[in-house]
């Protein structure tokens, strides 16, 4: 039997020392299977972002067990963690986080630049370019956008570019921290539609941190965090 994509037991994360110590996550147990879609919600400061950073292998300072695709993150070195972030995980942030000095095409292709082994690992420049253009069309952007700078785009367009970038190397796990937070309602819905569709096409698991009830409503599984604890793990028919 294949291990679950995410396997966490008694996962805890604390910040600071002494009186200023903050317990951001407490004894969290979680299993996520490949292709699952989840919303993570909870009040501000509940630990949502903290959880997402742990799952995205960006933050290694946890206690307990955390396995992504069967590998315990504690045991991985910088190269293996980087490879994991590169090939297995795709991030979409609330503030898009595109590099302002690179044009859209270069931003899109950025993950391919960090693939260890390049062509040997099945990532050759021509294929990357083709996939970038295909994704650009797929997220509903004109090919002419490719040569423009992120700052010349609207918020919705920027988030579409960020989604396309996260999907470039077909990651098994898509992590989104309030991806629609800075978009208006109409744009938010369109982006979310796209997101869910692309995740399904790729067979990627999708974890969305959100406060938006409409976003929560669309997900088959919802995790409620409160004060660092998993208050509810709610599954329902889509």
């Amino acid at each position, binding site marked *: 039997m294949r291990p679950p994509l995410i396997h966490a037991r008694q996962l805890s994360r604390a910040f600071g020392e002494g009186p200023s110590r903050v317990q951001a996550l407490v004894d969290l147990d979680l299993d996520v299977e490949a292709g699952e879609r989840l919303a993570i919600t909870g009040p501000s400061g509940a630990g949502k*972002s903290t959880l997402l*950073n742990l799952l*995205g292998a*960006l*933050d290694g300072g946890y206690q307990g067990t955390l396995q992504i695709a069967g590998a315990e993150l504690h045991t991985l070195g*910088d*190269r293996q963690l*980087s*490879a994991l*972030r*590169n*090939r297995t995980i795709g*991030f979409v*942030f609330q*503030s898009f*986080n595109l*590099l*302002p*000095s*690179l044009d859209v095409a*270069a931003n899109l*292709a*950025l*993950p*391919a*630049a*960090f*693939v260890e082994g*390049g062509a040997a690992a099945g990532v050759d420049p021509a294929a990357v370019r083709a996939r970038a253009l295909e994704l650009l069309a797929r997220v509903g952007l004109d090919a002419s956008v490719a040569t423009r700078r992120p700052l010349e785009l609207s918020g919705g367009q920027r988030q579409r570019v960020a989604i396309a*970038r996260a999907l470039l190397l077909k990651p098994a796990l898509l992590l989104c921290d309030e991806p629609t937070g800075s978009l208006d309602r109409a744009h938010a819905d369109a982006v979310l539609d796209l997101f869910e569709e692309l995740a399904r096409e790729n067979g990627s698991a999708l974890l969305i941190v959100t406060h938006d009830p409409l976003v929560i409503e669309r997900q088959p599984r919802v995790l409620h965090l409160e004060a660092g604890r998993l208050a509810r793990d709610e599954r329902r028919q889509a």
Partner: protein
Amino acid sequence: MKVRSLASLVATNLRSSPGSAASAVLGVALGAAFLTFFIGLGEGLRSRVLNRILPANQIEVEPRSVRVFGVAGSPTGGDLDPARLRRLQGLPGVERALGKQRSAFPARLWGGRHLIGYDLHTEAFFDGIPDALLRPELEAFERSLDLGRRRRERCDVDDDCPAGSLCAEGVCAAVRWASRFDSRDVVLRCTADEDCQRGEACADGRCSPRCGEDDPDASPCRAGERCLPVTDQEGAPAGDAKTPEDPPAVCRARCRGDSDCHGAESCDSKPGGDGLGLCRAVRCLLQRPEDARSLERGAMRGQLAVACDAAGGWCGRGGGCTGLSYCAADAPGAVSGRCELPVPVVLNPLLLEVFNTDMAASLGIARVAAPEALLGVRFHLALGDSHFTADAARDRQMVRQAVVVGFSSKAPELGVTAPLAAVAGWNARFSGSAAGSRYDGAIIETSSNEAVSATIAEAEAMGLELSRRSRTARTFGTVVLLIYLALVLLALVVLAVSALGIAHTFAILVHERRREIAVLRALGATTRAIFGLVLVEAMLLGAAGGLLGLGLAHAASLAVEAAAARWLSEVPLLPDAFFEFPVWSYGLPIAVGVLFCALGAAWPARRATRLDPATVLSQP
């Protein structure tokens, strides 16, 4: 991480912060420019000033002498004779050791009438140096004048031709003066063995090395020379009943034709019977003494005609000799003599500078435009005569001609430098045959600069010491080297300071770009990739700065050269250029710029790898 993606990222990063990049580059450029400038100046001074006076692997030693107030007295360490010269030659690390002689007889010289309008008279001091030591420099100087490529002009006499060339068969032809600084062109005439150096005999009117006395392996004869009994030289039948005391034999060069002999001799094929002949003085062109007197003009009228004793015919002041040769009497006022080639001499360029700056002004005479104007200029030597001591060695006096064949900083500043053979021969003539084989100094050439110190120690153990000239050159060399190193150190300090600037700039850049760096980490960049990204950016700036510095240094050196040429052209002894940039000096500033930028950026780059992406990305 792929090189291309990395390069484009770095390039866009550089473009996105041009201000800080520019200030970082300028600092490095300044340091690299200092470094290159000082290296160019240091190398230029070392090779153009020092090496010209005395190359780094050459030293000059003399017998140690008592010094009173810095003035050398009599030698205390014994003579520098051929045996000791051979010992020097045999020292480990010594490539060759060549003896030098100074003139040990009074002499005066006069000439310059057709250069400045009247003759200058002065005492003359001679330095005899082995011609092999000067020839490369003389030839290089002559090549730089490019005499051969000049337009060939028609002429009747030498005076119609530009400086450095002579009239030959109706056209001006460049004379290869440098090749005339050759002891084989020096034929020392004699009437008896006492006129010659030790180990030589007077045969056929010329001093030649004795041979055939001891074992034939140690024969002093060179390639192309044969050991012949003196009687053979005179053309008398060989193999006759030998006189009881065995006539001495001497080395003589054999010739096939006149071209094997120098300008005042021809090939006489009589002796030997092997078809090869001996070079002999040519027959003089005039039939009668009246012909010689009739050729003389103006003030010279009334001078004696000279009977060319061995070869026959007559010559005089006005002519009677072929080619470059002139009519030389055996002694002042003597009737006997022959045609001879002028003695080739080399002058120190300082002499010309002093003449042009001080003498020309105080005497109110025209300056000599360029050194080549003096090439081929002849003057007269009265050997054994002096303005100060009357009647010195009157019976041995002779008047000879000399011709200027080049300039060399290795020649003593005050004096006339001639091939060793000439000075040694004259010393033997005036001070006894032993004086001809006693050296006043030796030039030692070592195989490497490192061998010099050991050689000096060995020479000192032999009772020799460095000459004043060599000591000065070595002291000067050390001083120049120290200043050079100090300036290079200064340039390195400037570079180190600019590296601190780079560190500061990149610390700010890394802080400004921390969010981008965190995003790259989230997308899968390893810490090594981040480190490389920052470092490569710094190294590119360093290379750009180094390149800019290289350009600045060369521009500055050109400006200095131009200023020197404009304002310092009349200062004596200045080299034609101050800067010399060895090949490695082109790569060095770039390499050093890259290195110092990499050093400066290493710490900020390390900080970039330490950034916690989760924290940075959580900040709004």
